[in-house]
Structures are given as C-alpha cells and as structure tokens.
C-alpha cells in the first residue's frame, strides 16, 4: 500500500481538529500527521499540540505508531514546526525536545524530493515550482518540498526557516530587475520566513548591494 487506507474527508478533518483539542491518542497523532499532507490547517493544530504536550507522550510508543504509517517523514515535518514554536523556551528544554524527537523518529528516512502537500496545487503549475525552488528547511530536512509554513500567524515567533542558499537565490532573482530593496521588501519577498535580524544580515552581506541610511528605513542599492 503506497498511501493511506483512506484519504480523509472534510468531516474526518473536522473530527481531527476536535480530537486534537481534547484528548488525542498516540495513534491519532501518528495518523493525523499523515492527514496534514491534505490540510495545512490540521498541520498548524498538530504542531501546536506536539509543542505543548510532547513531555506527556512516550516517544518509543509514538515511534511504533509513526512507523506503521505510509509517510513517517510527515511526523518529522511536524516536529520541525513544533521546534519553531518552542524557540522562546530555555535552551535545556529545547535540547530535551530534540532528544525526544530523535527517539520518536528513530528509523524514519527522508522522502524523495516530493511535494509535501497533496492535491492542493495545480500540477506543473507556478506554485508547485515555487514550492520546489523556495522550499523551507522544515520540509527539506525530511525530503519534502513546500514554502508554506504550518504555523498560525498569531504564534508570532521569530523564525528563519529558509536556508541561506535559497534566500540568496531568491534575492538574486528579485534584484535582476530592480535597483534597490528595503528590509521590509526583502521580508515580504520571503513571506516573512526570515527574522528581521537575519533579513538585515542577509542584505548587509549581499556583495551586490550597498546600504544608504542608518535607520530601520535603510535602502540597499545595487552596487
């Protein structure tokens, strides 16, 4: 069997949202991680649940359930999102989460350069290609491609989830037809998948740009 025994319906997904907000079992968490490939909103909820409840979840039991699923790597993606949500916790707690994640994902191998989301974008369309080109690290790490973060905007954590190579590439492409760029424009280009601090560092470090001004409104001109 290549995939799920059943693709979730809208009703299934609604039930999953409710279950995640009450008392999901480990089996539920594993199954719902698969369903996130059809529904990013479910991914947002699941990542939040994992970030809040991981200490109460036995990672070995979770690993058993994950490995029964057709796409165990999908739970890896959820864990990467949970890590972002835990960014403001102390260093020790974040380290413990990493150990927990390692056990929960024992034996899980990367997927093979495939789109994370299924059935959401037009085949061979512009958006699919953008996903492949500007894929976020949280997906790439597990062999998937997507540029849509599964974190609710209200979570407001500082996050840089695009790799330096991808950021540089996107900046080069953007500057091909432009003479200048501001930090805000750069962050908009990267759909806020970069922290403001990192955005400033990127523009300062880009050899083809020269800054003008000293305030937050600084403009970077082509050299």
């Amino acid at each position, binding site marked *: *069997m*290549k*995939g799920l*025994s*059943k*693709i*979730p*319906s*809208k009703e*299934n997904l609604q039930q999953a949202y409710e279950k995640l907000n009450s008392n999901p079992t480990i089996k539920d968490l594993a199954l719902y991680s698969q369903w996130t490939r*059809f529904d990013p909103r479910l991914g947002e909820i699941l990542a939040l649940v994992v970030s809040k409840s991981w200490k109460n979840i036995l990672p070995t039991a979770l690993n058993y359930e994950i490995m029964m699923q057709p796409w165990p790597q999908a739970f890896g993606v959820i864990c990467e999102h949970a890590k972002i949500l835990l960014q403001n916790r102390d260093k020790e707690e974040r380290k413990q989460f990493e150990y927990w994640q390692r056990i929960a994902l024992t034996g899980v191998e990367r997927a*093979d*350069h*495939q*789109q*994370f989301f*299924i*059935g959401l974008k037009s*085949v*061979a*369309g*512009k958006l*699919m*290609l953008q*996903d*492949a*080109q500007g*894929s976020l690290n949280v997906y*790439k790490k597990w062999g998937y*491609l997507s540029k849509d973060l599964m974190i609710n905007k209200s979570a407001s954590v500082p996050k840089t989830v695009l790799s330096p*190579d*991808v950021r540089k*590439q996107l900046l080069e492409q953007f500057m091909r037809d432009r003479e200048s760029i501001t930090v805000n424009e750069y962050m908009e280009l990267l759909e806020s998948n970069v922290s403001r601090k990192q955005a400033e560092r990127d523009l300062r470090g880009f050899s083809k740009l020269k800054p003008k001004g000293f305030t937050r409104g600084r403009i970077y001109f082509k050299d």
Partner: protein
Amino acid sequence: MNSSMKTLTQQKMMESLEALDGLLNSKVTLIIGGGGAMVLAHKFPLATEDVDAFSKGIELDKLDELVKQVAKKLGIPPDWLNPYFSTFTHVLPSDYAERLVNVGKFKNLTVQALGTEDLLIMKCFAGRAKDIPHAKALIKSKPNLKFVEDHIYGLSKRKIPGSDRALDFLDDLLDQE
C-alpha cells in the same frame, strides 16, 4: 494474495477505468503517468502494479472512495490507482497538457496519458534502476530529446532538488544509444 492480483494488465486497467466511469455522475479527467501511461498510451508491453494518476473535476477523497469501490467489485488491490503521483509533478513543463495522449473517453470519464517527453522527464527524476527500461523505450520512440534536456537543465539552474541527478540519469541513457 496471488501474484496475478498484484499486477494490472492493460485489459484490467481499462476494465477498472470503465468501472470507475460507471460510478461517476459528473465529468472527470484522469491524467496518468508512470507504468500505466507506458502500457495504455505508449504500447509498452508490461503489467504494472498500479496506475499513477492525478485528477481534475473531483475531490481526492471522493475519488479515493470510488477507487476502493472499483477495487472491491473487480477483486483488485485497493490502491490500484495511485493519486500521490502528483507530488512529483513539479518537474513537469507547464505546457505538458499540449502533449497529452488520449487513452479513453467514457460517459463521464476522460483518460489521458502524459506524452513521451514528459514521461521521460519524470523517469529521469525518478532515476531508479527499474525506470531504465521504460526510459530507454521512450528514447527509442524518438522524442524531442533537446526539449527534455533543456527542461531538466532549466530546472537545475533554478536549483530544483534532484535536477542534477536527473541530468546524470539522462546523460547515462544517451551515452548508451
């Protein structure tokens, strides 16, 4: 499970698609790739485990339900139609629709297959040993190889993951010609 139930012949595939058509009450198009396309559209004589396809005109979960109903009716594996194949189609040229090959037109269901060049592009990205015979067969049918090479090269310049490996796969095949 006996081995004859594991593989789908050309006849069984068409029977399954016809059965699927019987369950539809609105127009749906299926575009097939992989081994199914090789058999149904490109006359490659093999039996494949499933039919890789993406759909237009029907929600995935609804299609999945009907696929399982067909499987039960015909005694074939429940995953005889693989809809997850679409997750690899970001490597296809955006004008792939211009090269589709007609496979069948039923009452509500239209079935088309990816064209030779597009199938070859996907085979290069799949890059497995078992893809080599299919890829060689596609090359023998004299596709526009420059188009294929230029497209994969273009993806490589855009740093699409797997592009360099796909180019190596194609180079290796062409070296053997």
